[in-house]
């Protein structure tokens, strides 16, 4: 094997005690670029090799805390700033409810970060191009033997003294390991251009697929079944009714909301007999009556009910409400006029609700009394 570059010398041991002694001796000898390979971790080996404590705990702590903070901030922003919704009567920032998610994110980020850090940064794996691979040494050490490796890079390395050293600690099978051609120029694969391009392609494919799925596929059959529904949509031809209209007129006798059935259409005198004003005369009803009267009645009957309105001068003139006839009409009779209309006066059912009509009637009564007051009213 001339011309090949030496990587290390290896020694094999049969028992754990032997390898512990060998490691102790290697430290004593002053070797620094050496390693111990065992099929499973041996207790106490870390101390013997004087390895400093692993820093991966700090990685877990830092990434875990970043996960906590990140989750907390995101949840706060989403719930209290971006789109606040009242859910279950709880405040926008309902911290107790966020704890489960924050906890899970903490664990997830800590676990992933620690393992990735361990593999890619601490171990510099994946690395299948190490000189120790595919050697007899590796076969043994992955199975049932324990081994020590003294690298040629070590300042105290010297083939003969290393051989002597390994013999002195009773190593069986002392071998030399050489670099293979392709291993010499081995670089860490993660940052290789080929791998980075591969990652880029994966990103493009993933994002493209996601876009296509969410923006296009979801709107195609069979995923958009709920977009085609058997219900009657507005403006759509009806398959049920002969005239093809989806929109129908209300059934005969339908009463609009806020309105009560009125039985006295065309029978104003009957209404005058039967209907009683349910609204007592009070400040509120008079104020309401005044407001509505001023809006709806005053254009024809005038503000004081005298018929001297702005529409005066037309034929026929709007009558005064202070005539003997109107004054003796019952409240219900006036209500019939408002509801049915009379002569040229239209029905005011669409402008005045039932209560408002009664309030107007109260106001009219007040107006009438004002113009025909008795002396006792002055007290």
């Amino acid at each position, binding site marked *: 094997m001339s011309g090949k570059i030496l990587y290390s010398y290896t020694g094999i041991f049969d028992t754990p005690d032997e390898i512990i002694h060998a490691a102790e001796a290697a430290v004593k000898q002053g070797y620094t670029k050496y390693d111990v390979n065992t099929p499973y971790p041996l207790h106490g080996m870390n101390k013997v090799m004087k390895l400093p404590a692993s820093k991966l705990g700090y990685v877990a702590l830092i990434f875990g805390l970043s996960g906590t903070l990140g989750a907390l901030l995101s949840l706060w922003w989403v719930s209290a700033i971006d789109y606040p919704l009242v859910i279950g009567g709880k405040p926008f920032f309902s911290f107790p409810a966020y704890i489960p998610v924050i906890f899970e994110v903490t664990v997830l980020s800590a*676990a992933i970060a620690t393992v990735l850090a361990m593999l890619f940064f601490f171990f510099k794996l994946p690395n299948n191009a190490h000189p120790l691979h595919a050697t007899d040494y590796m076969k043994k050490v992955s199975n049932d033997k324990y081994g020590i490796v003294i690298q040629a890079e070590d300042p105290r390395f010297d083939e003969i003294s290393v051989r002597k050293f390994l013999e002195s600690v009773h190593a069986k099978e002392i071998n030399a390991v050489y670099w293979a051609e392709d291993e010499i120029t081995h670089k860490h694969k993660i940052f290789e251009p080929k791998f980075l391009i591969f990652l880029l392609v994966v990103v493009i494919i993933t994002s493209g697929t996601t876009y296509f799925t969410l923006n296009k596929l979801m709107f195609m059959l069979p995923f958009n079944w709920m977009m085609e529904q058997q219900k009657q949509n507005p403006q759509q031809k009806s398959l049920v009714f002969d005239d093809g209209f989806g929109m129908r007129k209300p059934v005969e006798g339908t009463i609009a909301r806020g309105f009560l059935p009125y039985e006295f259409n065309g029978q104003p005198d009957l209404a005058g007999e039967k209907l009683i004003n349910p609204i007592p005369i009070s400040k509120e009803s008079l104020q309401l009556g005044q407001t509505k009267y001023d809006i709806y009645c005053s254009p024809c009957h005038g503000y004081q009910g005298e018929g001297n309105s702005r529409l005066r001068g037309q034929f026929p003139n709007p009558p005064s409400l202070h005539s003997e006839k109107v004054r003796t009409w019952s409240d219900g009779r006036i209500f019939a006029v408002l509801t049915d209309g009379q002569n040229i006066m239209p029905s005011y059912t669409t402008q005045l609700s039932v209560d408002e009509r009664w309030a107007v009637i109260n106001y009219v009564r007040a107006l009438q009394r004002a113009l025909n007051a008795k002396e006792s009213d002055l007290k």
Partner: protein
Amino acid sequence: MSTVDYTREVSVLEGKHALRELDDLIAKPLETKPDKKFYIALAITLSMTGLFVLGLVLTFYYGIGMWGNNVPVAWAFDIVNFVFWVGIGHAGTLISAILFLFRQKWRTGIARFAEGMTVFAVMTAGLFPLIHVGRPWLAGYLFPYPNQHSVWVNFTSPLLWDVFAVSTYLTVSLIFWYVGLIPDLATLRERTNHKIKKVIYSVFSLGWRFSNRHWQHYEMVYLILAGFATPLVLSVHTIVSFDFAVSVIPGWHTTIFPPYFVAGAVFSGFAMVQNVLIIVRKIFNYEHIITVDTLEKMNKIMLVTGSMVGYAYAMEFFISWYSGVEAERFVFLNRALGPYAWAYWIMVICNVVSPQLFWFKKIRRAIPVMFVIAIFVNIGMWFERFVIIVTSLSRDFLPSSWAYYTPTLVDGMILIGSFGFFFTWILLFTKALPVVSMAEVKAVVDGAQPSHKDH
């Protein structure tokens, strides 16, 4: 009966084993072609999986109406199965992580297999929330990504916490399992001469070299992962219990649900692990690695967690009376005496009564008996979730809304099929990866560690 000598530490493995022998034994199923028994077993599980697929296709095409779910029992087999399978997964993490933190060496023979079961159980469980929605193809909506509707998911809902919890659990369990597999994959890489296998093992072992400088970090990370996995396991089933406990339904809204569910999950998980391990150790001749001592310890854990579940039943029952709330008092009477009394009593007999047999050492160490008890426990725990979910929903506050739920054929297909799905993965696992952790088992053999420990 031989008396135990407390001055000696009990060996994890029976008899003296050379490390080479262990490697050969554990790697054997991976190096031999599957035999007839394997193909028969696979055929059975694949047909069950076929039933599963058929049930799912019918459900996707025709909708949830194919199931028996209807108001008031809007959740039934779907969620019972979900909680059941998530619970099964917890035993694996408990064995790997919690027993590791307690330095219980006897976990080494079973940890790998149990972790694998966790991964497969959580995969099975995760299917149920996906399929029980009306439009499963919109499942992506569950994740909080910025979207054109400008809406976010409801972070205050336990159903969403489930999304985070189960995904985290699956991810971390996979990572934990994989990290444990790395040294074994490296061993297999060195053993094999088969070209393709060598490439696969090389890639997945990442080139692991068994260097002690690496072992040092590896052990720290394993400890950290175990330290995270433990509260994670508790949190996952706690969050699953929150699905019910945050509501106001009597029988659901009770503060003891979180630890009760966790104990129940460990209970049912151990029963399933024990059942499968008994079969595995027989088939692969691992009786000296997965010893009767190990099985006995698992049975003890079942006794403890089963008793915790029994405690929770008793406490719920007492406090429901103590509360004085009529609806609460009714729930428990209804469970025992109402239309679902048959399910309730199956649950009590299987969960509370049968594991009490494990007080007796003879029974703890008798394999046929413990196998049957564990099956009862599995049945009982499935029924426990059924009783909790279905009885509380079928009769809650308003008697005019009460109704009796009956499952449909499709419900049954999906239930049976989920077992097929789960066991198919397990079978494939036994032939693709070492079901016992080679490195961990070798580390606890007598004489595996250096004798002087004081340095």
